[in-house]
């Protein structure tokens, strides 16, 4: 049994999540998935590997909140999202998202919305190890009640 939401040190399994979210439902017209990978170059640095740290209970809660938000906008979409923690090597997946829907536009949008919201409000941090040093990456100040941020994610999702 694959849960729709997971924060895990184990390698991410896209086929298993896809099967769980979309498996053989005749009403589906589309399944979209997103896989975020650890990239070798970042801001001119040659990355060696990333270490992800999470505040796990709140991260799981925030991911579930994002799925609830997405269901409000696209009620016919079913979603799953798994995020990796710990050391992740170059080329490995740090996040996978699967969205299934009768309609492709909804599946694409819900998938993108979920990713943008993860970057806004899920308490997970990248510790980048690169040639010559290491640095904590800091993106957004997490505020799930920031309606402007949510609207930005929605706009990007529907662009």
């Amino acid at each position: 049994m694959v849960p729709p939401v997971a924060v895990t040190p184990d390698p991410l399994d896209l086929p298993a999540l896809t099967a769980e979210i979309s498996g053989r439902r005749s009403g589906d017209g589309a399944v979209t998935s997103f896989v975020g990978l650890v990239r070798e170059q970042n801001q001119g640095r040659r990355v060696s590997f990333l270490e992800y740290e999470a505040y796990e209970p709140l991260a799981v809660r925030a991911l579930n909140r994002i799925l609830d938000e997405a269901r409000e906008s696209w009620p016919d979409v079913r979603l799953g999202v798994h995020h990796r923690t710990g050391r992740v090597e170059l080329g490995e997946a740090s996040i996978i998202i699967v969205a299934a829907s009768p309609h492709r536009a909804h599946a694409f949008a819900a998938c993108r919305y979920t990713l943008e919201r993860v970057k806004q409000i899920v308490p997970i941090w990248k510790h980048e190890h690169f040639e010559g040093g290491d640095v904590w990456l800091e993106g957004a100040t997490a505020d799930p009640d920031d309606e402007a941020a949510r609207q930005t994610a929605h706009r990007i999702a529907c662009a």
Partner: protein
Amino acid sequence: MRVTVRLFARLRDLAGSGELVREVPGPATVASVWKGLVAEMPALGAYERTMSVAVNADYSRMTAPVSDGDEVAFLPPVSGG
């Protein structure tokens, strides 16, 4: 009262620990717990404008009350994905 303080990412590095137990005078708020922490470790203070806070693993605000036994977390800007 006694609270557990959780720190993550660079805040954890600056404090040298991700989990601290602290005695705080009541009535306490997230802000008063933070103030005590910064008095002890001034380097943390720079995060006050950009961090988020949580009480018992739920997002909260600096003005929220804190009770004996609560877990109070201070979170630098997030960078998942």
